[in-house]
C-alpha cells in the first residue's frame, strides 16, 4: 500500500499548478466555512450562557383609575396640605395574567408579606432601642384639655398619664389637632381622655410640634376580597373619655388590647412567600445575593417545604447557621406592599395589630423553618423594590393555613410584589398576546438585563455566520467537485491502465484517492484551524463590548457580568480547536464522499470500455 500512496502522491505532485491551486482554494473555502461555523458555535455558546445568566422578568402594576385630591388643613401653618390618592375601581386578580399564549418560566405571582412575631429574636437595631429612644412616634396618653373646644384646630392638653411612648412625661403640655377627621368632636377641659397619638412631623407651626390621631387603635383589617372590613368603632376613632371605671369596663377593651400589642412591631419579622427568588427584584438585580447555602430546590418550591432564607445580619444577630430551625409564628398578612417598603432599619410596618372587633390577631400558622441559605446585600432602606430589614424568604406554598382573618392590608398588583419570568427574547410575543387581552389599566414593565440588546448583536452574528457557512459550503463543494473531476474523473485512462496492468480495484481506488485525500487533509486542517482561530479572536473581541449589563449598576451585578465574561473567554479559547477538528472532519468526509463516488464511477467500467476499444 505504501507504494500505492507514494505513486499517488508522485503523480499528483506532477500536476503542481493544479495541486497548489486546489490547496489554496480549499484553504480559503475551509477557512470561510470554519469561520462561519466558529461564529455559529460561539453564538450558540453565548446564547446558552446568556440563557442561564439572563432572566427576563415582567413587573406588573395596576394603574389607578383616578387620582383623588385630598386636602388636609394644617392649622399650625394655616394652610391646606394636599395629598394625591390613587383610586382603584377594583383590584385585578392575578388571573388576568394567565391568558393563552403566556408562556411563563416562573410565576406570575403576587407576593404576600407576612409578619412573624418573635419577641425572643433580636430584629431591629439595638433590640428595638432605636424605637424606644424616639424613632417610634406613637403614644397612648391620658390627657386633659386645657380648654373646651372642637379638636379641628390646635388644642393644648396636659398629659395625665403615659401608657405607651417615649419622651413625654406626665404633666407635659402637648398640642393636638385631629386634622384628618372631617367631623371632629368637642373635648372638654373638665374631662380626661385616653388618646392614641402620633408625632406630627409635618405639622410643626409657630407653636412647635403637634400631635395628631391616626394610630393603631383603629383596625386596618381587610377581607380576602381586598375590601377593608368596617371597624366596629367606626372611622376616625382615636380617643375615648376616661371615666372612673373606664379601665375595668367593656369600653376600654380595645384600649387594653392596644396596650397588649403595643410592643408587637418591635419584634415583627417580615416574611415573604415566593415561588422563585429570581422574581424578587433585589435578587434579580443582585442587590441581594446568596452568600452561603443555597436557594430552594424546585421541589421545595413546588411542595411548599418549610425552608427559609435569612439575611446575614439576622443570622449573625441571632446565632443562626445553615440547617438551623427558625420558628415563624405568622400573625398578619400584607397583600399590599413589599417588605422593602414597610420594614426598615428604623422599624417595622405601622400595622394595627387589632382586628375589626378590636381584638389582637391570633397566629394563623406556626411552623419551624429550616435555614437553607443566607443572603447578603442591601436591605431595610425603605425602598419599595428593596429588601425588607431582616426579611425572611420562604416558599409561598409553605404557608398552608388560611390567612383571611389576618389580612392587615390589601392593594392592587404592584411592580414590587407582582412579577413573572418569561423566556429571554420573547417580550414582543408576550406583549402582542397581552395587548389582545384589552386590559388597559395594568402596566407591565420588562427587565432583561440587556438581553434584548445582546440578542440583536447575536442575531447579527448569526446572520454573518450563516452567510459565511453558506459561502464556505458552496465553495468547498465547488472546489472539491471541480478538483475531483480533474484529479479523478479525468484520470479514467490512468485507472484503465492500472487495471490492465493487473491492479485490483482496491489498489486503483487507493492510487487515485490517497493523493487527493492528503491534499484535502492538509487544506482542510490548515484552513479550518485558521478560520476557527480567527472566529475565536473576532468573537472574543466583539463579545467584550456587549457583556456588561447597563440596566442595573450595582456592584453585585457587575461582579456577575465579570464572571460571565471570564467564562465566555475560556470558551473562546477552547472552541477553535474542537471546532477546527469538527470542520476539518466534515470537509474531509465531504471530500472523501465526492472523490470516492468519482473513483467508483471510474471503476465501474471495465478497462476496455474506458479505452473505448471494445467495439473493434
Amino acid at each position, binding site marked *: 500500500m505504501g*507504494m500505492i500512496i507514494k*505513486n499517488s502522491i*508522485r*503523480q499528483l505532485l*506532477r*500536476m503542481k499548478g493544479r495541486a497548489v491551486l486546489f490547496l489554496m482554494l480549499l484553504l480559503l473555502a475551509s477557512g470561510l466555512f470554519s469561520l462561519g461555523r466558529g461564529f455559529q458555535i460561539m453564538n450558540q455558546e453565548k446564547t446558552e450562557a446568556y440563557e442561564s445568566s439572563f432572566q427576563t422578568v415582567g413587573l406588573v402594576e395596576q394603574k389607578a383609575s383616578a387620582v383623588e385630591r385630598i386636602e388636609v388643613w394644617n392649622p399650625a401653618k394655616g394652610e391646606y396640605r394636599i395629598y394625591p390618592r390613587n383610586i382603584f375601581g377594583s383590584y385585578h386578580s392575578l388571573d388576568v395574567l394567565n391568558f393563552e399564549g403566556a408562556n411563563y418560566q416562573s410565576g406570575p405571582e403576587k407576593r404576600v408579606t407576612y409578619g412573624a412575631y418573635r419577641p425572643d429574636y433580636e430584629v431591629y437595631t439595638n433590640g428595638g432601642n432605636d424605637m424606644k429612644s424616639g424613632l417610634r412616634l406613637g403614644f397612648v396618653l391620658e390627657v386633659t384639655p386645657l380648654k373646651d373646644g372642637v379638636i379641628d384646630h390646635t388644642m393644648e392638653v396636659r398629659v395625665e398619664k403615659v401608657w405607651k411612648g417615649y419622651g413625654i412625661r406626665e404633666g407635659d403640655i402637648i398640642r393636638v389637632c385631629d386634622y384628618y377627621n372631617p367631623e371632629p368632636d368637642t373635648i372638654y377641659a373638665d374631662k380626661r381622655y385616653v388618646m392614641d397619638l402620633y408625632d406630627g412631623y409635618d405639622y410643626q407651626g409657630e407653636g412647635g410640634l403637634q400631635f395628631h390621631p391616626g394610630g393603631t387603635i383603629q383596625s386596618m383589617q381587610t377581607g380576602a376580597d381586598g375590601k377593608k372590613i368596617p371597624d366596629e368603632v367606626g372611622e376616625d376613632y382615636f380617643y375615648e373619655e376616661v371615666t372612673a371605671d373606664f379601665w375595668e369596663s367593656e369600653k376600654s377593651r380595645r384600649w387594653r388590647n392596644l396596650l397588649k400589642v403595643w410592643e408587637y412591631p418591635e419584634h415583627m419579622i417580615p416574611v415573604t412567600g415566593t415561588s422563585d427568588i429570581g422574581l424578587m427584584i433585589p435578587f434579580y438585580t443582585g442587590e441581594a445575593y446568596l452568600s452561603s447555602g443555597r436557594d430552594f430546590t424546585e421541589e421545595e418550591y413546588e411542595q411548599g417545604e418549610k425552608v427559609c432564607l435569612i439575611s446575614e445580619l439576622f443570622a449573625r444577630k441571632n446565632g443562626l447557621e445553615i440547617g438551623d430551625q427558625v420558628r415563624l409564628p405568622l400573625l398578619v398578612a400584607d397583600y399590599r406592599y413589599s417588605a422593602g417598603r414597610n420594614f426598615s432599619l428604623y422599624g417595622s410596618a405601622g400595622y394595627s395589630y387589632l382586628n375589626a372587633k378590636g381584638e389582637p390577631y391570633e397566629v394563623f400558622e406556626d411552623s419551624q423553618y429550616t435555614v437553607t441559605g443566607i443572603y447578603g446585600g442591601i436591605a431595610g432602606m425603605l425602598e419599595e423594590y428593596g429588601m425588607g430589614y431582616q426579611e425572611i424568604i420562604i416558599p409561598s406554598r409553605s404557608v398552608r393555613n388560611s390567612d383571611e382573618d389576618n389580612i392587615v392590608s390589601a392593594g392592587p398588583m404592584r411592580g414590587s410584589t407582582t412579577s413573572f419570568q418569561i423566556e429571554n427574547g420573547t417580550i414582543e410575543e408576550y406583549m402582542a398576546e397581552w395587548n389582545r387581552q384589552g386590559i388597559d389599566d395594568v402596566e407591565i414593565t420588562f427587565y432583561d438585563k440587556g438581553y434584548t440588546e445582546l440578542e440583536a448583536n447575536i442575531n447579527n452574528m448569526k446572520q454573518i455566520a450563516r452567510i459565511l457557512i453558506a459561502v464556505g459550503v458552496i465553495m468547498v463543494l465547488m472546489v472539491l467537485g471541480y478538483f475531483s473531476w480533474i484529479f479523478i474523473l479525468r484520470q479514467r*485512462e*490512468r485507472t*484503465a*491502465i492500472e*487495471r*490492465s*496492468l*493487473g*491492479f*485490483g480495484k482496491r*489498489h486503483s481506488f487507493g492510487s487515485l484517492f490517497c493523493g487527493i485525500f492528503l491534499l484535502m487533509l492538509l487544506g482542510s486542517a490548515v484552513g479550518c484551524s485558521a478560520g476557527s482561530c480567527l472566529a475565536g479572536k473576532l468573537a472574543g473581541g466583539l463579545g467584550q463590548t456587549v457583556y456588561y449589563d447597563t440596566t442595573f449598576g450595582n456592584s453585585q451585578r457587575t461582579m456577575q457580568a465579570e464572571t460571565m465574561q471570564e467564562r465566555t473567554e475560556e470558551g473562546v479559547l477552547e472552541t477553535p480547536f474542537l471546532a477546527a477538528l469538527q470542520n476539518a472532519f466534515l470537509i474531509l468526509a465531504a471530500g472523501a464522499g465526492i472523490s470516492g463516488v468519482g473513483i467508483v464511477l471510474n471503476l465501474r467500467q*471495465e*478497462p*476496455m470500455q474506458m*479505452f473505448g*476499444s*471494445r*467495439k*473493434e
Partner: protein
Amino acid sequence: MEILRAEHVSYSYQTKYQKVEAVRDVSCSFEQGGFYAIVGESGSGKSTFLSLLAGLDVPSEGTIYVQGQSLGDMDRDAYRLNQASVVYQSFHLFPLLTAQENVMLPMEFKKISRKEAARRAKQLLERVGLEPRICRQFPKMMSGGEQQRVAIARAVAAGGEIILADEPTGNLDSENEKKIVGLLKELAHEDGYTVIVITHNSNVAEETDHVFRMKDGGLEQVR
C-alpha cells in the same frame, strides 16, 4: 506447449439500440514462444477477443484456459499482473510518470524494491532500443515509436509469459513499425513470450508465425 486456449468463446453486449454479438463461438489455441497475428476488418471483434484473452472482460459463453486452468476461475487481476500484459495502439502510458517510472510501476507493485525496479527498468528500456536519456522523459516528450517501446518494456517488466498487443503499430510510421514488430518477434522467439498481435496490417501479419482472421465475430486460422 499450449499456453492459452479459447473454447467456443462468444461475447455479446447490449448497446442502447441493439444486442451486439462481437465474438461468436471462437475456438483456438496459442503455444508458448509463438508469434500470432489476428487480422480482420474494423469492427470484426478483434480487440474484444483480445480483451477476453487478457481477462479484461469475461466471455458470455465458452471458456478461456490459461495453461489448462480456466480463466474464469482465476483472479483476473493477478493473471494480468503475473502472466499476461497488454500493449495498446495508443500506448496508454501514465502521462505523469517518466518512461523509467512507467516501466518500474508493475515491478514495484509486485513488491520489487524501487532500486532493483529502477535497475531492471533501465535494462529493459535499453533492451527495447531506447537511449538512456529517454528514461527521464515523460510520454508526451517522446515519439510514438518511443512510447510504444516503453509500453512493450512495461509489458515485459511485469514478468509474464503472454504479450497481447492491440494494433501496436497502428500509430507508427513504417520504420518504427518494423522496429516494433521486430522487437515483438524477438521477445517471442528469443525470450519465449507468447505474443498475440491484433492488426489489420498485412506487413505485420506476414512477420508472425501464425495468422488468424476474424470476420463478423468468427475466427478462422489462415496460416
